[in-house]
């Protein structure tokens, strides 16, 4: 399983966020939040530092409120496993503008690289298919990543992708961690100054 050449998470996230246009981003706690910060802090990134298991449903609420904007959730396998039911909830609601990408390194990277369930038989793309995602992908190489990218913002979702990545730890790049600031910054940028009144 782990003896092949794996994608590296930071270049993958750089591709996910390239030419982001009107994209709204929610990142799950831990490495996905640092990965998004490494690409560059952005006011329309809502980067989580906690509330494990909540990234996908935050994306669902946001995608529902902003149906004309593409919404991308970037999270980790441990975070997704804590909120697996959210995949079923998203699949039932079918928001066309929502994509959920799991950077699956098969490890709890923040806590000592313990194996997650995906290091065993649990296949998150298979779970997404089973709960009703018509577009669910398991990505393991550059070619399948390249074919995934245009689907993430095409508005024909929901889309789910588990991207298998190396468990190498990258340098920490920290976005702001004041949640109230992140919330206000996101809303002011998206909705205008009236959102703060």
């Amino acid at each position, binding site marked *: 399983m782990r003896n092949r050449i794996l994608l590296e998470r930071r270049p993958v996230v750089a591709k996910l966020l390239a030419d982001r246009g009107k994209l709204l981003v929610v990142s799950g706690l831990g490495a996905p939040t640092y990965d998004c910060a490494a690409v560059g802090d952005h006011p329309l990134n809502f980067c989580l530092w*906690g*509330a494990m298991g*909540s990234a996908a449903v935050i994306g669902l609420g946001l995608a529902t409120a902003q149906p004309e904007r593409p919404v991308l959730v970037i999270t980790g396998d441990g975070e997704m496993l804590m909120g697996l039911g959210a995949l079923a909830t998203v699949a039932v609601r079918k928001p066309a503008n929502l994509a959920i990408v799991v950077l699956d390194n098969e490890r709890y990277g923040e806590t000592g690289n313990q194996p997650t369930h995906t290091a065993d038989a649990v296949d998150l793309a298979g779970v997404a298919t089973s709960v009703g995602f018509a577009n669910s992908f398991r990505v393991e190489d550059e070619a399948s990543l390249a074919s995934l990218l245009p689907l993430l913002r095409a508005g024909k979702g929901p889309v789910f992708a588990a991207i298998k990545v190396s468990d190498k730890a990258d340098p920490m790049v920290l976005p702001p961690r004041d*949640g*109230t600031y992140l919330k206000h910054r996101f*809303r002011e940028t998206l909705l205008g100054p009236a959102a703060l009144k």
Partner: protein
Amino acid sequence: MATDWPLDIHHALRAASVRQVSYVPDAGHSRLITLCHDDPTIVATVLTSEQEGIGLACGAWLGGQRAALLMQSSGVGNCVNAFSLLKTCGFPFLTVVTMRGQWGEFNPWQVPMGQATAATFALAGFVVHPVDVAAEVGPTVAAAAKLAFDSSVPVAVLLGQRLIGTKAFNEAGKESGKE
């Protein structure tokens, strides 16, 4: 004529411009759930677990919409870590909770969480509005929505079991509620 308090809650949510309502079903909320699904101004979302409703409401707010979560008191315990989102980020939040384990409960398994519900909310930083009188339900939800969305605080309205009616086993020997 008896007060139609589920309809009053629906009116209060509409008047407060709530656009997303999520829920894990409870018998006490069944009429309100139907009203929300039938309302073209509201997107109603059924959840697998109540904690999903916290993130959903925060995402809605980020996108410029107001949301509310409907749940039974047993679901409050499922939300605890997700409540940290509300406090850390200062999100407004509104939940309407049907109480079990409180007034004449017949099912002992409902009692521990029902008895801990108000204290759990208080520990998580919520303003808690209990209501036991049908005529006060609508005004209480309206005031709770104003407090939540205008003052950016989490607010829980607890609909007492005395109001909802204490459940009993029906002829088939089954509860008609969540379980």
